[in-house]
């Protein structure tokens, strides 16, 4: 087993365990912290795949901005531990089988998909340069790029409107 595979398994295990922890924990703050662990693990995996820019963005934006936002909100709302209330029956009896089904199907299709053979043989990992990404971003994907900037504007305005106290 090459070093990469070992690193992969370590990071993968970390991510999965953190995700399970997210489910198991009762206090939202613990769930948030678990989520941060997941994101860091995933950033590691991105690095393993040579996507350095994405890894950096993941940590900066996701981990540094979004999750901080989450934690702020938790603090703001003084969220406490979840109460033990009754599950929605449908959620209980439908949810697990459903989740298993979804996961299983996706997995099955991955395993058996013909695209697996359509993939070119595994090459050594190459770093994707930021220059390539930015080139793509401003030529082929310029339209979605501009749209997302517009989207951010909308989100900002929405957040401001929502956060206003009623005067």
């Amino acid at each position, binding site marked *: 087993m090459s070093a990469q595979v070992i690193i992969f398994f370590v990071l993968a295990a970390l991510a999965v365990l953190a995700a399970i922890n997210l489910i198991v924990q009762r206090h939202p703050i613990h769930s948030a912290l678990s989520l941060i662990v997941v994101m860091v693990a995933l950033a590691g995996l991105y690095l393993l795949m040579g996507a350095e820019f994405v890894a950096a963005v993941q940590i900066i934006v996701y981990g540094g901005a979004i999750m901080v936002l989450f934690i702020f909100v938790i603090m703001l709302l003084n969220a406490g531990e979840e109460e033990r209330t009754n599950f929605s029956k449908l959620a209980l009896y439908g949810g697990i089988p459903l989740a298993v089904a979804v996961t299983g199907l996706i997995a099955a*299709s991955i395993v058996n998909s013909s695209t697996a053979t359509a993939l070119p043989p595994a090459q050594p990992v190459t770093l994707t340069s930021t220059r390539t990404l930015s080139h793509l971003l401003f030529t082929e994907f310029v339209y979605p790029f501009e749209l997302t900037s517009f989207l951010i504007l909308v989100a900002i305005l929405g957040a401001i409107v929502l956060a206003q106290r009623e005067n």
Partner: protein
Amino acid sequence: MSTTPILEYLWIIPLLPLLGSAINGLLGWKWPNKLVHSVALGATGLSFACALEAVREFFANGQQPFRKEFFDWIVAGNFRAGFDLQLDQLTVVMLLVVTGVGFLIHIYSTGYMAHEEGYFRFFSYLNLFMFFMLILVLAANYVLLFVGWEGVGLCSYLLIGFYFLRKSASNAGNKAFIVNRIGDFGFMLGMFLLFRTFHTLDFNALFAQAGPLPSEAMGQFGTLTIACILLFVGATGKSAQLPLYVWLPDAMEGPTPVSALIHAATMVTAGVYMVARSHVLFMHAPTAMYIVAIVGCATAFFAATIGLVQSDIKKVLAYSTVSQLGYMFLGCGVGAFSAGIFHLMTHAFFKALLFLAAGSVIHAMGGEQDMWKMGGLASKIKVTFWCMLFATIAIAGFFPFAAFFSKDAILFAAFNAEQSGKVLYAVGLLAAILTSFYMFRLIWLTFFGKSRFDEHHVHVHESPLNMTIPLMILAFLSLTGGWFALPALWGGKNYFADFLSPILGSGEAAAGEAAHSLEINLSIVAVVAALAGLIVAWRMYRKDVKQGPSTGLHKLLYNKYYVDELYNAAVVSPLMWLSRNVLWKLVDVGVIDGTVNGIAHGTSAVGDTVRQTQSGNTRSYAVWVLVGALVVFVIIFWPVLKPTLFGAVR
């Protein structure tokens, strides 16, 4: 020779009464009687005049049959049924009878119906009837004839139920229409069969195709035989033969002019006309003709027996009509088509006269129709009496009145018929005796003896001129109408048969010497028979008679052999039961309503179920979203998933 004006516009003959009907029907409800009957009489009178003119032109053209297609009505593939009118010798006879007698009856009605509600409605219907009857006789194909056929049935219904506020009248109207419908079903089946065989329903084309075909054997039920039998079923309904005659006696609920025009002179003769028109087909189907003869003969006798004991004056005449129609069919059935038509014509004269005179009597008696409540009227209403007497002598078949010649021709032809000729003749002769008997019974009960009514309550008065003049004209025709067909042995010429021979063929075999003496003998026997009936009636009814109790045979005859009750139990009641319990409760309420309501309930139930998803619970919404996503995923990835899921099984 070029066709001259009226014939080009042959459609004007039926159109005029239609216009009269429309004007009276739509605009006449507030008009005074004078205006209404002026329109009606004008329409009918003009129609009669045009008919005369058309006949004159026909003769001027050397009796060339005339046919003109006015417009296409049905065109489907190779089949064409147009508004085609034709005029040939047979049409001439029918046309003149319909328009002439119709006109006289219209005149009579102005007097009879003068004090009735709905005067305009009556004349509107009467004109409408003339329109349809003229379409019937002028039609050049079966389809148009059927239009007229159905139309006269409709008018018959409207006119029988004229006094619609009387339950018995509206019931009688229903009965007439429904029983006719049964006959019409047979007619239509016959038409379909003819169409399928010959691919046309036009008279000329059809008869040209059928003519050269070999004749079917006696007892063989080939296509033509079956078609003819079906057509005859239609004639049975319209012309009140066994077993569909039951509507005619009930039809006496209508006003008396209606009985005279529709149920004596014209509509009921439509069946005979149709059979005569189709004689080419019938001549190829001896089985069918035999059936026609038997049914006609049986009906003649059967109806005569019922007429022997009736007490309502109009009912006697109704059964008499059924009986005489039987004679006409007997004539057609043994091949003497022109004799049958001849009897149709003479019957129109004297039967219309009988009904109109009876109407005059009823009018004089202030509405009384029961003969047992009449008596001794001869001196009080002289004109009516003499006219009725003329008609009675005519119908009994005394020389030289009309029916002598026509009935004689039929009986002679029957005697010579191949199949059961002698039997047919014997029954026909018996019916003639009975006819004479019940007609003179009518005369004696009504006009002679002591008055059996209270003279202070009923003011017997003669009818006004507009009623008596038509009576007199018809009486004259009853006397002279027979002289068109003096048999050769009397030294005259059978103008009538010769006139019709281009159309009907010389159905009667050329008479030899032996046949001559036979004919004389038979005529004498007929007159003797009529005398016998007269004498018996005279002996029984001349003295003061009282209506005795009804027992045994009398009861059977008086109740018309309980035929109506039989039909009611055998046909009507099961049908009503079926309609009520199966068609209404099962099909209509259960199936149709059930389906519609069921769909509504089903929709409602489905809605109730689907509503469960909108629970207001966010988490179940989440699950539904997931389910949807799963479904979409499966659909998109099916080609990939299939081997996975099912590959494992294999």
